């Protein structure tokens, strides 16, 4: 042990001697600071970081950030600390952290990462947040004050209070006060609880909960009261949140089912390959993103028309090659289209890959819309919800207000009569099937933002789609909308107490019982057409 220790000491001494000439040569204090950070054992990392922060070096922020992002490495041979600009693949692009000069690519084998973990990263976030508190943009200041919540320690109280003095924006002031209050509640300060009583932030609640469990009875009682008020407010928010979750799941169901509502509901074709048409739409999004690298948003918008066209074309091919010959034979249609769905799946597996494809979510669709600290609506789902409603409204318009819609309705109600009135029923068939398939493609484009784009994508939605259409009433678009949204909401209401698996089963049993009672669904078609 003793020998080992002296050996390490010797080595360290040797290392520092070796590094000394270098420091002396270019006399950049930054090099020594980074060297110390890279050399520091776990217990000394904090010291090394503090040395960098307090050095006042204007590059310090960049270093800290790079370290936090795992972008500091050392060259194994020379021990030099470098910035890693690109750490994908086998060769990494590196730069000199002191001068910012690009040093080109270097094999990963030659580099040794400067280790970091969650604990240190948490501290770095606190330090960066402290630096950001002086930013010009109040949004940045608010975000960093929020980051400080729960991270304030004794050393940060004075600078935070000083910052509070100069702060002009009320939002930021509130945040800083909350951050300070969390620290003070931990210290046993009774007044601080009043500050937290109005906050819905999880970290404020965490601090109060801790106080309730603590050994200070006065503090515990007061914290308990504050928690009571918060709980009241939370309940409302939770109800709103569940409703949003339900509508969002419902909108996905509506999107997946609405194309089927046309092909199955209006035309009466049991199309088991509907799910694969959705999949084609999703793969189109992926394909478009490959065509427009670096512009995921543009690619996504362009894939709306393209996805529609691709799926519609596939639909026409399926209709012309198979379905038209099986008119009036539902069982055979079912089997044939099931075969088509398997063929399409395997085709994607062989041609593209059995692996899922990465579809990038554009910047403006990630994250969430913050209503308050307890309620935030995830943006990607919000967009999908809106998209579903737009698609539904457009379809409704087409069916009600256009010549195509009129002809479709005529042909479904009485095919022979419509033909004798001069409507080309075959053409209407093709157009209707293409429309339904195209809408499935649109669903795929939207789903690519929520779920995995892979060969099995369609399979996961086919059962749900049929359930929604049957539940809503075959042949009724409004029925599909109401059915989709209500099934989604029921599912999300059940999930918290029944669990995801049981919730699905309960919904299925509910639909089976419902269909027993009302075989034609929520909104059955009325009149003579219903008998036909």
């Amino acid at each position, binding site marked *: 042990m003793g020998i080992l220790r002296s050996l390490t000491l010797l080595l360290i001494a040797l290392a520092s001697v070796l590094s000394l000439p270098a420091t002396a040569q270019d006399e950049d204090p930054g090099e020594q600071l980074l060297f110390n950070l890279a050399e520091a054992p776990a217990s000394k990392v904090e010291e090394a970081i503090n040395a960098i922060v307090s050095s006042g070096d204007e590059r310090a922020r960049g270093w800290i950030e790079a370290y936090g*992002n*795992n972008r500091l490495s050392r060259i194994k041979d020379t021990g030099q600390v470098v910035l890693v600009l690109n*750490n*994908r*693949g*086998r060769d990494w692009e590196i730069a000199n952290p002191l001068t910012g000069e690009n040093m080109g690519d270097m094999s990963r*084998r030659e580099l*040794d*990462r400067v*280790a*970091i*973990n*969650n*604990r240190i*990263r*948490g501290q770095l*976030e606190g330090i960066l947040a402290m630096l950001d508190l002086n930013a010009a943009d109040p949004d940045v200041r608010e975000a960093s004050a929020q980051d400080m919540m729960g991270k304030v320690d004794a050393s940060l109280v004075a600078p935070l209070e000083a910052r509070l003095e100069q702060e002009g924006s009320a939002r930021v002031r509130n945040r800083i006060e909350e951050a300070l209050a969390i620290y003070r509640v931990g210290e046993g300060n009774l007044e601080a609880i009043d500050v937290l009583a109005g906050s819905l932030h*999880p*970290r404020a*609640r*965490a*601090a*109060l*909960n*801790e106080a309730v*469990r603590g050994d200070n009875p006065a503090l515990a009682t007061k914290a308990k009261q504050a928690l009571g008020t918060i709980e009241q407010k939370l309940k409302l928010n939770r109800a709103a*949140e*569940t409703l949003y*979750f339900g509508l*969002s*799941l419902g909108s*996905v169901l509506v999107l997946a089912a609405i194309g089927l509502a046309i092909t199955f509901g209006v035309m009466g074709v049991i199309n088991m390959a509907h799910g694969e048409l959705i999949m084609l739409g999703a793969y189109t999004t992926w394909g478009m993103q490959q065509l427009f690298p670096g512009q995921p948003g543009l690619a996504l918008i362009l894939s709306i028309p393209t996805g529609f066209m691709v799926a519609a074309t596939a639909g026409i091919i399926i209709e012309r090659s198979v379905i038209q010959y099986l008119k009036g034979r539902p069982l055979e249609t079912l089997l044939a289209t099931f075969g088509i769905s398997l063929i399409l799946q395997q085709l994607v*597996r062989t041609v593209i890959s*059995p*692996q*899922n494809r*990465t579809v*990038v*979510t554009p910047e403006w669709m*990630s*994250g*969430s819309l913050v209503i308050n600290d307890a309620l935030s609506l*995830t*943006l*990607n*789902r919000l967009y999908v919800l809106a998209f579903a409603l737009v698609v539904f409204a457009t379809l409704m318009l087409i069916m009600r207000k256009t010549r195509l819609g009129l002809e479709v309705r005529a042909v479904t109600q009485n095919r022979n009569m419509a033909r004798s009135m001069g409507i080309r029923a075959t053409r209407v068939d093709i157009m209707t099937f293409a429309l339904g398939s195209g809408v499935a493609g649109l669903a795929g484009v939207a789903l690519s933002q*929520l*779920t*995995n784009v*892979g*060969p*099995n994508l369609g399979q*996961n939605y086919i059962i749900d789609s049929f359930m929604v259409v049957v539940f809503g009433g075959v042949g009724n678009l409004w029925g599909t909308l109401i059915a989709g949204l209500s099934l989604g909401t029921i599912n*999300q209401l059940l*999930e*918290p107490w029944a*669990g*995801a*698996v049981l919730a*699905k089963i309960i919904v299925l049993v509910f639909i089976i019982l419902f269909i027993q009672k009302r075989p034609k669904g929520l909104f059955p078609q009325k009149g003579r057409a219903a008998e036909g």
Partner: protein
Amino acid sequence: MTIKKHVKIGLSALALSVSLNAMADEHPIKVGILHSLSGTMAISETVLKDTVEMLIEQQNAKGGVLGRELEAVVVDPASDWPLFAEKARELLAQEKVDVIFGNWTSVSRKSVLPVVEELNGLLFYPVQYEGEESSENVFYTGAAPNQQAIPAVNYLMNEIGVERWVLAGTDYVYPRTTNKILETYLMDMGVAKEDIMINYTPFGHSDWQNIVSDIKRFGSAGKKTAVVSTINGDANVPFYRELGNQGIAASDIPVVAFSVGEQELSGIDTGPLVGHLAAWNYFMSVDSDANYDFIDQWIEHTGNDEAVTNDPMEAHYIGFNMYIEAVKKAGTTDVDAVKDAIIGVTVPNLTGGYAAMMPNHHITKPVLIGEIQDNGQFSVVWETPSTVAGDAWSDYLPGSRDLIADWRKPMSCGTFNTKTGSCGASAGEMAAADE
């Protein structure tokens, strides 16, 4: 009479020369590959098929083993569990393969077990699993719970100070058994029942809003909270996406996953996930020459510069090399001889250490905890000081506490009860009884 005799002699001479000939050209060693190339599991299993093919190619380039070439026999069980049993039978009875590398899900392994035991085959199983099994004919090169789950929980408890636990998993045998083990373990360590939340979701679950929001609420009770995830397959992608969207950062509620590897992460933007954890016995980012060489070979084999390696691939790498070593040691591919020879065989792993085959047919592995980085890789933040030997029968389940497995003669038993001193049913019989 004499003519007949002559003919007889001639015939036997002929037969002799034929058999001599057969020995001279030495038919190849057949390696069966039983991985799904279509269906749900194709996403994970296809790369394992490619891995074994690559290993066979490399071995042949080195001149095979015992002077014999190796030959891959690939079948596709199509993610269909009963079909796994049929294909295994086809491999063993018709193709007469010498060894099988295969399976991913536990249910497929359970379906294959009775067949492999009946026909006395060899199966190398490369995936982390729930334990509670040891078969004479199966070699488990993936992690048992004590080589993954327990050390990961210890890390969270001791290094991060986690006091409140969410055990989230997909609804099937591996997560359920693992969570049962973890729950008992956590309660033994003094965690209160209300500080443990258990949640199961179906395969391929994509709507995580409610569950993630539940986790967020569960985590605001003032105690450090972590999620232990046994969520399987591609359901992880929407799960992590939802975590990112709802703003759950690793510094608030870290998620430690047992089924998320480089392969799964290659499907998402890992920016918002930086700092979430995974426990494995191998990461692609491990800094060792053996690993860098393996990655180079893999990229060359696949022709894809972005190809990633993962833990089950390393398990096949170890298993394959162990098989080769055992065949060399036994001097034959005879199943019984190889089975005896392989116990104690030690080969290098990819993390710079060695893996040894234990008498219970599990291997020694280091346990690594890695944090997700923004480039879709993990950076190792903690590892066990030495390798850990796989434990077939968990010490934290009432039924299995007293059981051990030891396939060395004279014991040769996978379910030896140390209390009663008797040997229970074989793994295949138990799997058959389950069905």
